[in-house]
């Protein structure tokens, strides 16, 4: 580690310690569940693993093994330790296996996620039919957060430990095998799997699995075939098991195989068959049948396989990727499609990493974001065709913007977001969405073959250099803009140097058919050069433009190749400004109209009378084209690029061979996290607070006239004062202020119990668990008043103070109301663990400017930023500095919320704990430099971060490694920040719900510094260079494996001094917040408005087939909604409007059985048919298939039949005529 990095971490840690000391002092004074801070600091992964598992000795062993072997190997090594009793204190074989499996999962997930504790329920030993014993591992839903590899490895570790402790293999019964297949299909249908193995594959796995995979039911739907099996407890789908089998074993077989090979004790020879897909041992015809009706996965695999196999034989053609429609699945209303798979006019793939780019992100030009009617904003998730499945959108303005056709006939490329908003209303068609920046690392991470690259400046300039040109000299020439040259410069370079035509003037010839190209050349030859008289030079060196006679096919061709021009059908003209490279590309030569016809560069002098001085001559005829050029393309002759190359005097590359389809996924997020309904204090008030859970109401509530107002019967934990034996529910004795202890009793024999070393409370006489929870009367009024008094606040300090109905934690310890009063005062609310949180979509950024963060250079310097990315001293707001790994950028909303939280914390310290305020923030600039916790859902470890600035984008920008440390990627994932002191003071494990998943999303441990080797390795695949080599671009044409290309990625610097720095980028962007601040999805009101906008946009986009969109919206959104609601209607529950009691079936009395109140339906006609008319209208308007229309028709009739009285039909006016 470099010294400056060490300094940075030391600084964070000392700041953390300072806060820790304050918090510890406070905790000692207060009446919190524990008198100390409950989030232990973990120095490294080993610490985290041990803290999360609670198994002593693991950390030490992990550290021993760490240097010697990979983490996976260490997991297996630890399994041995568990089996042989060196680690963990387990007496039973099942316990040993369980310990080993949990540790393996914890280790492979870097001790961050909750999967090891929440995702593995238990391990038990069962008996095979032949009397031998086998291991059964019970998985639960949260195993999801472990990811496929860890899931798969957990099975291997279980098997390995099983072998070591001497238990036999699991021998699945036939019906169990069949059950696995049915269940996985069911789970996929109900919840969806990333990868769904075919039935055969599932059965094959189930048959060979050496341990039994089991788990708890996660869904309501039940299997219909293989029910009530003796060794399977449930008829519902077991989600955890399904994940492990499908996304673990089936998907990650090659990874497991790597480890089984090295282990003598376990033998999984079937993995090879699984990988090869050779498990169809019975019949060939079935395999054929399978291929025939295979799902998309299958087709894609087949297609891939075909591709590889037949590549050499195939006739030569342009390299293209295959279409994948997967991203269009489950399209929903209001989230538009931007481009159909590989569709012309869609986003063009450009390679590169912008500074706000990283893993699972996609760079889009901000002008495009505006032009797609603001549906894309910074952080909006898009579901994409490739290379991954989804990505977070980041604004990058150093790539090409979209090209649009305006109502006035202008076809313009829009490279300026402001211009985009100005012309937006006049856009008739979006001909091209512009470029779409994806970094090399994305392809590595997704193991996706490189897709053919667009011909872009980065590539061209290397071609130019390779052609022997002194690029440096050109770059240094102040008169030359190498990236955006004038047309004549571009022509000159193309003809003088042996390099292809500059990409700026390379048009999308490959989208034009050879026939259309020939026609276009004809039209150009007929064209004339005019001075348009506006005096503009348009880069032609003179005031000339090319004028073509207007014809629809010419206009179409120009739109197809995305050339800027003006269509004036009224004047029978099409005008093209930058005409020279274009004219040469279609094989025409400008000639002076002189008798000898010598080719001359036209010299239009201003004095000339405007007479056409220049004629264009077509230098070739169709017959001159070679067979190859004429038939070039995916389909015969649909790609004119070879023809262009034959007729043009220079080389022309394919400008954009890869288009990437995508659609909108989730909108970006930047919102405070409130429970629903929001909670200020985790103090129970039962039903007394009404639907609002208002503590003040509860304090006045009385069931009957004879009851004392405010006295409510509640379930709370019983505490006892060790000093004076007073019984209370508080953490401090109301009499002597001594800290109290939970008073456990046996529910059967009422004996007082003491927790054992492991914290378990069991009555050894009755052999049942003891508890301290009891139902007692609590005077909420008294508690409320005294709390107000103790913090010195009056009731008018806040609008409402909301409590909870009941506590869901094991010991039901209530939070002091005082905290809630102060939260209410500052309008912040508590999460289930007592902390105040703010959610933001994650986006990465590696370099920042002070100017875009709303901070000044001085503030950055104060945080230890001294140099910009070029090593120059930091003096100016516009200089780029490299972001330090734990520094984060808050969205405006987050900053605001953190300010409120800070005020709450200061009041809490002063008024409740009796200490000095900690933050004392005047304005948000004071937040810069403060520490926060970053914490992702499904994880159990918080990561310490430091606020460095603010952005108007509704996202949380941070270093990619920071996100990876929380185990998030940036494909639309979101997570939260908490103010450091809030977490330290208010978090308590005692508040966490006592149920599956209760310990997820709670900071059970915090990491004070990020070790790049211990983060989600996805981030290691991010490339960190400033330029991709020419070989890379050429390799993309071969669709090479990304690993074959040498570009430095994060992984390469791990463990070196440079692991925290040197994250270079290939593309800059003006500001990390550009484009709309919020996606239109969030600003539009109703679902209908959103859908109208979605369909409207689909009409505008060249790359989108609006009928398909309408069809999909109906198919995936309206129909399921209608069908689902109709089904729900006819088997619905009912609910009492007064007390909220639910009834499975309508009570025969008609009234509520609990309170006599009015009962009503939970699903009404209105919610069933809300989309009916819209769906029918959309189907009609967008010309959907008869099948779709008929489905709607049948449904409409069903609705009528149910909701209309046959004898009292709404009659039309004709009935009265």
């Amino acid at each position, binding site marked *: 580690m470099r010294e400056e990095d060490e300094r940075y971490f030391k600084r964070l840690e000392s700041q953390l310690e300072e806060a820790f000391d304050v918090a510890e002092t406070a905790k000692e004074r207060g009446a919190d569940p524990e008198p100390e801070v409950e989030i232990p600091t973990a120095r490294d992964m080993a610490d985290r693993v041990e803290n999360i598992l609670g198994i002593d000795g693991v950390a030490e062993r992990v550290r021993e093994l760490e240097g010697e072997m990979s983490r996976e190997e260490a997991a297996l090594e630890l399994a041995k330790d568990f089996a042989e009793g060196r680690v963990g204190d387990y007496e039973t074989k099942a316990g040993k296996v369980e310990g080993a499996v949990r540790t393996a999962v914890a280790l492979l997930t870097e001790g961050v996620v909750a999967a090891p504790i929440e995702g593995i329920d238990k391990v038990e030993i069962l008996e095979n039919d032949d009397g031998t014993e086998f291991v059964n591992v019970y998985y639960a839903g949260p195993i999801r957060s472990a990811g496929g590899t860890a899931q798969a490895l957990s099975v291997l570790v279980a098997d390995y430990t099983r072998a070591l402790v001497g238990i036999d293999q699991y021998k699945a019964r036939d019906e169990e095998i069949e059950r696995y297949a049915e269940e996985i299909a069911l789970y996929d249908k109900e919840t969806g799997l990333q990868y769904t193995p075919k039935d055969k594959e599932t059965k094959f796995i189930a048959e060979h699995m050496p341990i039994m995979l089991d788990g708890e039911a996660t869904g309501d739907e039940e299997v219909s075939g293989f029910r009530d099996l003796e060794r399977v407890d449930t008829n519902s789908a077991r989600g955890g098991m399904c994940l492990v089998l499908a996304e673990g074993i089936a998907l990650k077989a090659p990874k497991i195989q790597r480890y089984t090979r090295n282990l003598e004790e376990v033998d999984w020879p079937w993995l090879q068959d699984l990988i090869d897909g050779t498990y169809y041992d019975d019949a060939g015809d079935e395999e054929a049948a399978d291929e025939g*009706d295979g799902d998309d996965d299958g087709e894609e695999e087949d297609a891939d396989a075909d591709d590889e196999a037949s590549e050499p034989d195939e006739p030569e053609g342009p390299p293209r990727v295959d279409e994948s429609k997967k991203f269009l699945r489950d399209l929903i209303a209001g989230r538009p499609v931007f481009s159909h798979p590989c569709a012309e006019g869609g986003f063009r793939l450009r390679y590169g990493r912008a500074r706000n780019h990283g893993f699972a992100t996609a760079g889009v030009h901000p002008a495009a974001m505006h032009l797609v009617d603001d549906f894309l904003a910074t952080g909006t998730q898009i579901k994409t065709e490739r290379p991954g499945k989804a990505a977070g959108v980041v604004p990058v303005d150093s790539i090409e913007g979209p090209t649009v056709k305006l109502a006035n006939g202008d076809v313009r490329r829009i490279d300026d977001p402001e211009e985009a908003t100005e012309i937006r209303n006049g856009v008739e068609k979006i001909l091209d969405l512009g470029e779409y920046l994806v970094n090399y690392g994305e392809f590595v991470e997704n193991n996706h073959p490189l897709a053919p690259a667009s011909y872009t400046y980065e590539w061209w300039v290397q071609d130019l250099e390779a052609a022997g040109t002194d690029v440096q000299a050109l770059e240094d020439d102040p008169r030359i803009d190498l990236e955006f040259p004038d047309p004549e410069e571009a022509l000159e370079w193309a003809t003088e140097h042996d390099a292809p035509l500059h990409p700026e003037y390379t048009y999308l010839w490959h989208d034009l058919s050879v026939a259309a190209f020939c026609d276009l050349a004809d039209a150009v030859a007929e064209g004339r050069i005019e001075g348009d008289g506006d005096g503009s030079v348009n880069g032609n060196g003179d005031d000339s433009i090319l004028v073509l006679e207007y014809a629809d096919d010419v206009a179409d061709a120009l739109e197809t190749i995305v050339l800027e021009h003006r269509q004036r059908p009224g004047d029978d003209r099409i005008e093209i400004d930058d005409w020279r490279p274009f004219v040469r590309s279609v094989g025409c030569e400008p000639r002076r109209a002189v008798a000898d016809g010598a080719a001359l560069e036209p010299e239009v002098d201003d004095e000339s009378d405007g007479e056409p001085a220049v004629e264009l001559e077509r230098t070739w005829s169709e017959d001159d084209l070679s067979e190859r050029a004429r038939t070039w393309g995916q389909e015969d002759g649909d790609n004119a690029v070879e023809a262009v190359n034959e007729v043009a005097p220079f080389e022309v590359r394919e400008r954009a061979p890869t288009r990437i389809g995508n659609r909108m996924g989730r909108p970006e997020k930047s919102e405070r996290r409130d429970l629903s309904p929001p909670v200020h204090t985790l103090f129970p008030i039962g039903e007394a607070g009404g639907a609002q859970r208002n503590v003040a109401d509860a304090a006045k509530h009385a069931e009957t006239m004879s009851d004392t107002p405010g006295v409510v019967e509640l379930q709370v934990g019983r505490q006892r004062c060790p000093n004076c034996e007073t019984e209370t529910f508080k953490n401090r004795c109301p009499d002597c202020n001594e800290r109290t202890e939970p008073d456990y009793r046996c529910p059967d024999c009422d004996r007082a119990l003491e927790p054992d070393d492991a914290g378990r409370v069991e009555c050894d006489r009755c052999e049942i668990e003891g508890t301290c929870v009891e139902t007692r009367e609590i005077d909420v009024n008294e508690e409320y008043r005294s709390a107000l008094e103790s913090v010195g606040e009056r009731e008018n300090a806040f609008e409402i103070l909301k409590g909870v109905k009941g506590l869901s934690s094991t010991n039901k310890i209530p939070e002091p109301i005082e905290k809630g009063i102060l939260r209410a005062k500052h309008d912040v609310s508590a999460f289930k663990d007592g902390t105040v949180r703010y959610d933001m979509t994650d986006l990465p950024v590696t370099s920042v400017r002070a100017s875009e963060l709303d901070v000044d250079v001085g503030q950055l310097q104060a945080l230890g930023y001294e140099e910009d990315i070029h090593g120059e001293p930091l003096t100016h707001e516009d200089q780029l500095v490299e972001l330090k790994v734990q520094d984060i950028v808050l969205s405006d909303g987050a900053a605001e919320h953190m300010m409120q939280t800070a005020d709450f914390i200061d009041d809490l310290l002063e008024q409740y704990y009796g200490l000095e305020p900690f933050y004392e923030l005047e304005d948000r600039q004071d937040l810069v430099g403060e520490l926060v916790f970053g914490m992702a859902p499904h994880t159990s470890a918080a990561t310490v971060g430091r606020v460095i600035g603010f952005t108007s984008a509704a996202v949380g920008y941070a270093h990619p490694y920071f996100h990876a440390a929380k185990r998030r990627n940036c494909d639309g994932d979101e997570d939260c920040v908490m103010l450091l002191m809030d977490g330290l003071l208010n978090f308590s494990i005692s508040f966490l719900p006592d149920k599956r998943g209760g310990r997820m999303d709670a900071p059970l441990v915090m990491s004070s510094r990020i070790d790049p080797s211990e983060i989600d390795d996805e981030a290691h695949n991010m490339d960190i260079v400033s330029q991709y080599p020419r070989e890379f671009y050429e390799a993309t044409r071969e669709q090479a494996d990304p690993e074959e290309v040498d570009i430095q990625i994060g992984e390469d610097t791990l463990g070196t001094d440079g692991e925290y720095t040197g994250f270079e980028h290939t593309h800059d962007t003006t500001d990390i917040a550009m484009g709309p601040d919020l996606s239109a999805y969030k600003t539009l009101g109703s679902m209908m408005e959103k859908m109208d906008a979605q369909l409207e946009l689909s009409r505008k986009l060249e790359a989108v087939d609006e009928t398909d969109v309408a069809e999909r919206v109906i198919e995936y959104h309206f129909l399921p909604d209608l069908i689902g609601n109709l089904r729900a209607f006819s088997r619905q529950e009912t609910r009492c409007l007064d007390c909220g009691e639910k009834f499975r079936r309508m*009570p025969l009395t008609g009234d509520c059985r609990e309170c006599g109140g009015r009962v*009503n*339906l939970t699903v009404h006609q209105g919610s069933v048919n809300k989309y009916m008319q819209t769906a029918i209208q959309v189907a009609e308007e967008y010309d959907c298939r008869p099948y779709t229309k008929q489905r709607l028709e049948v449904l409409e009739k069903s609705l009528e039949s149910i909701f209309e009285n046959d004898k009292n039909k709404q009659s039309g006016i004709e009935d009265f005529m």
Partner: protein
Amino acid sequence: MPLEASARIVSELTSRGYNAEREAVTRLAAADHTDAALERVLEELPEDALVVRTEHVEAALSALESPASRSAADAATETADPSVSTGTPEPTAGESVDASPVETEGSSTGAGRSVDPELRSLEIVGDMTGESTGTGEYEDFVSVFRDRLDKLGAKLRGRVNHRPATAIEDMPGGSEVAMVGLVNDVRSTASGHWLIELEDATGTFPWLVMKDRDYVDLVDELLCDEALAMEGTLADDSGIAFVDSMYFPDVPRTYEPSTADRHVQAALISDVHVGSEEFMAEAWNGFADWLHTEEAQHVEYLLIAGDMVEGVGVYPDQDEELEIVDIYEQYEAFNEHLKKVPGDIEIVMIPGNHDAVRLAEPQPGFDEELREIMSAHDPRIVSNPSTVTLEGVSVLMYHGVSLDEVIAELPEEKASYDDPHRAMYQLLKKRHVAPQFGGHTRLAPEEEDYLVIDEVPDIFHTGHVHKLGFGKYHNVLAINSGCWQAQTDFQKSVNIDPDAGYAPIVDLDTLDVTVQKFS
């Protein structure tokens, strides 16, 4: 095809008054189509025989094989031209019977079908088509359940000295009490007893069935929302009653079914699924051809218990498995298939869950547009469920969606896909075709509960589960007809092997069943 083999054959034979040789039974059990073979044996048995011998079986089996191949051959030639059958002149149109419509070109009367329209009679009860008055309000739901309790309660109230739920609460502990109500909840207690909550128009009351009582087995059969009567003893605090006996509305053991006055038969089929790639056109044609033969001369009625067509949008991506994607074309095709049936056969049909009517039950009969399409035979199209009375024999037709639930909820020995008729027995016992609300079965609230089996039918006819099974429950003949759709991918994936291409034929004068196989 229910295949309990030998035991069933023996009981079938004894029920008809025959003894059998062991070898004969074994041969029968081993036959391809036990039921058909058995029928054939009985048919061909000499009048004076008392014991079924091996030679009888062998003779019958060999006879069975030749006609089968014959009908297959016929099917091949006859599909092209449906008018091949011997053309007797069309019968004169009777008053109670509509004339065979002109559209059924050529499909004239089968050989020797003695059609005397005067002898036929066909009445429909409980058809709610055009009577759907519910508008989906909460009150509609309440009244439908009240109607259920009223109708079924009437069958129970005479048997016990019942009290309303609220009155029971006020009775002194230890009293003998009884109550009639709908099952509101069934759950087991920590100590393994069962707590059953009964609900009547006044409220609910909990009844405890002790785990060691005889009645405990019945708890397994209970479905929510069925009507029950319970008798027992109030606990000391009057908060709960201990069950001594339980009564179901049930079919009286002594029930005497009505029969027709002449030898006339009805074919009971369902689940044709025209439009599906798996629709078995050949089997269907075989069936239609057979109806033209002399053997089928007594078949004068054809009942179809739903799922005429495969439908659209019944499950996701169904269009990929449809041979006919257009729903109207599906019905047109169905109509074409119907035309092959002799024109003088009376047809009654009800919709099923694949048909283009509402899914919620009761399902009204098809709308005008679809009736128009299926006009070939001028079939009687009525709601699901409906009761059709054929010459005095009442047939309750119900598509059978609730069977899935009965089979799922009840223990396998009481209801399974292999014995669908046993699941039907449960419905007869509960006197309701779809008791449980809120599960798989969908309910459309109407002012009365059309799903109650108010009058005991003589025959109970369902389909839906694609399995053939029949048997008698308290003398009521329960028949689940198979289907005309070969195993689908979905069925394969959930381990259902359908009985496709069978037509159970009921003698309306004896209520005996013969099964014809056409696949």
